[in-house]
């Protein structure tokens, strides 16, 4: 009864935190450079946020259910490499056209799903810490892509790339496909998290997996599904990524996992699980993208300090939330 007044305040403050951070960045950007709010720049930022964003939506579920996946960056690089290899080798048989692109997409989705299932199975069936399992698979995928590329870069056949390119660059009504797909993934993700039994079960497991078990929740299956879903979304992100530059190398997707995790946490999802929100993750992704965008658009600080500014803003965003949570 003493907490009746506390609950609503807590909620609204933790909601306001990240939104406020995003608004502050937008205002700062608009003041520092008039092109910041230009249509082109907005589209650029949203499109480049899409890869991390799509992955981060999947990561929100994994973290909410009390897990973690460090392998997504390497996984994306590996799937991109695999996709390019398959498409290049199928090219003579299929020719440039929709079938070969569909084949590539199928490879990406199947590869992602399999990779995610593999992580999830090892974690749930063998009961090994997610941190260790995905740290291991991170190394495996990273070195597999280096091996596939023979230490260099895998490049999509030039003519095929030109054909596939519109998937990144064009879209409907001037909004490119990555943004549309990102938006779709976010809307679906938000609905699943908020309004389905699966989302509720994720939060319950992350909150206390014993309680979930004793409440007849199929804990292992839900956990497995979060990793498989994340893998699938990595595949979706890769489908959007490959047409951009048409290449994959050992340098592809480096540190994406940390960016995705950072975005999830900035958005207000609890790192140790139990509470997650997809829309918050979107805000987290946008905050991260906008910081580097603004730093590029201005000569405000030495580029050597870009990392420091990013780090400081990430910590600040989370501190703001924590303080509002602790407030009262």
């Amino acid at each position, binding site marked *: 009864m003493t907490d009746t007044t506390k*609950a609503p305040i807590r909620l609204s403050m933790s909601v306001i935190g990240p939104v406020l951070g995003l608004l502050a960045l937008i205002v700062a950007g608009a003041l520092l450079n008039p092109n910041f709010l230009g249509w082109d720049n907005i589209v650029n930022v949203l499109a480049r946020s899409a890869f991390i964003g799509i992955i981060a939506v999947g990561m929100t579920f994994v973290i909410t259910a009390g897990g973690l996946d460090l392998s997504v960056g390497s996984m994306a690089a590996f799937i991109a490499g695999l996709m390019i290899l398959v498409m290049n080798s199928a090219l003579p048989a299929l020719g440039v056209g929709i079938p070969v692109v569909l084949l590539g997409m199928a490879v990406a989705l199947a590869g992602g799903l399999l990779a995610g299932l593999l992580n999830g199975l090892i974690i749930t069936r063998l009961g090994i810490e997610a941190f260790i399992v995905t740290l291991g698979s991170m190394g495996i995928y990273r070195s597999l892509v280096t091996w596939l590329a023979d230490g260099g870069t895998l490049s999509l056949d030039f003519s095929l790339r030109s054909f596939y390119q519109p998937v990144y660059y064009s879209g409907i009504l001037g909004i490119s496909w990555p943004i549309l797909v990102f938006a779709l993934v976010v809307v679906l993700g938000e609905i699943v998290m908020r309004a389905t039994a699966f989302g509720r079960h994720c939060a319950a497991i992350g909150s*206390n997996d014993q309680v979930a078990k004793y409440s007849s*929740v199929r804990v292992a299956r839900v956990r497995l599904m979060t990793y498989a879903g994340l893998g699938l979304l990595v595949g979706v992100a890769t489908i959007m990524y490959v047409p951009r530059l048409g290449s994959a190398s050992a340098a592809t997707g480096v540190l994406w996992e940390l960016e995705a995790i950072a975005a999830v946490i900035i958005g207000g999802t609890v790192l140790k699980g139990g*509470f997650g929100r997809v829309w918050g993750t979107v805000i987290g992704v946008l905050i991260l993208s906008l910081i580097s965008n603004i730093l590029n658009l201005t000569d405000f600080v030495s580029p050597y300090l870009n990392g420091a500014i990013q780090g400081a803003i990430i910590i600040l965003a989370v501190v703001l939330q924590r303080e509002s949570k602790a407030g009262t």
Partner: protein
Amino acid sequence: MGHDLAPVLELRQVSRSFGPIEVLHGVDIALQPGRVHALIGENGAGKSTMMKIMAGYQPPSSGQVALDGKPIAFASIGEAEARGISLIHQEFNLAEQLTVEENIFLGRELHRGPFLDKPAMRARVRELLAALDCRVPPERRVAQLSNSDKQMVEIAKALLRDTRVLIMDEPTAVLTRAETAVLLRQVRALRAAGTAVLFTSHKLDEVAEIADDLTIMRDGAVVWTGLAAGMDEHGMATAMVGREMSDLFPPKDSTPGEIALEVTGLNVPGHARDIGLTLRRGEVLGVAGLIGSGRTETFEALCGLRPGSGRVRLFGREVRINHPWQAQALGMCYLTEDRKTRGLLLQKGMRENLTLQALAKFDRGLIDTRAEDRALDQAIADFDIRGHRGALVGNLSGGNQQKLLFAKTLLADPEIIIIDEPTRGIDIGTKQQMYGFIRRLAAQGRAIVVISSEMQEVIGLADRVLVMRHGRITGELAGSDATEEAIVRLAMGVAVSAPQQESAT
């Protein structure tokens, strides 16, 4: 009150508000050195708040705290501890992975130069534990200790600080009868050494046994205070509840029907062997035995919560259950004894908790939150759950949590319900309600198992009683044969009169 000694710690006209809500209304209490003071009242009566104010966890909103007759305002818990006041929480405040010794000296380690002075600490710990008549090795990890030993470690920790006032929040709630006896002996020793002891308990027989002084609270106010000898158990219950307590247990009026559950040769590795039992619709089967006798583990294995093997028939059909959701799908649910870490999500609201176990009922692709709200309304009405609807479940009182856990499990509509410690740590009024619910479920034709450490509960509630010892069923008692004495004999393995089938192991 006319005692010959001056009180060491007093509350004078203390009130406490949280936001606009006043939860303590001008209470007085005085603790005397060398006396045991019991504080009783229903859940939510304000006992915890009062103890926290005495131990410096919270300041009073108005009124005075007086130490040795002089008003004092504790700046922190640390200051109160430094003044010799220690509060032992119901949930142990121990680092599970550290040893007994490390826990006792945590934060006040003895040093010799830059190094820990381990020999000195060990000697002091032995001394303290010996004084408490506790035979736990100082190097044992706390995680491996029984609840009563953990309680002793908490007390040793308090004694290390030269505690003059020891405040204990329901110290016996998680203890067995034997463990309780040990604890009460220690309390007497402390009293003899001149310590002022305050404790709360829902077990009125204990209160009658050990308390010198008694304070009874209801709805944030003291309704009675005086010598404990001046009040009998019936009087205490009446004062706490504020109305005449009728019979605690409802009449056993249901008639057993078809066989619902039949278990033969159930083995639970490390916990129980060769368990066989039958359970009929409309029946309440009591399961008694000491803590550690394998009661909980047996029924957890039955519901797929831990590995086990054996033949299980539900309503005549042989089934194989490896996961709790399979048990639930077959109409059997287990209500855990541990509502805080296994039963409820303390960080979530009532609605999420209520529907977690039967979420499929509300799943129409998306969750039908309106149906959930209706279910919550229904549960609140059916089970008399009190508390703000938006509050986190962790902030509800123990009794309301237990009712919610009950409602949650019943939402899954099980035919067979296994209830482990249905009334642990809840007040007598709520207990009576819980007994009513359980009996009503039996009357509806459901089959019920009640596992309990409280013998009166088992006897008062159950149609038949199974007694377990060392992982085996050592006997079955029914009707007038189910007496405390008979249960204790079977539980302790001292069969005196009736020749039992039990083997010497």
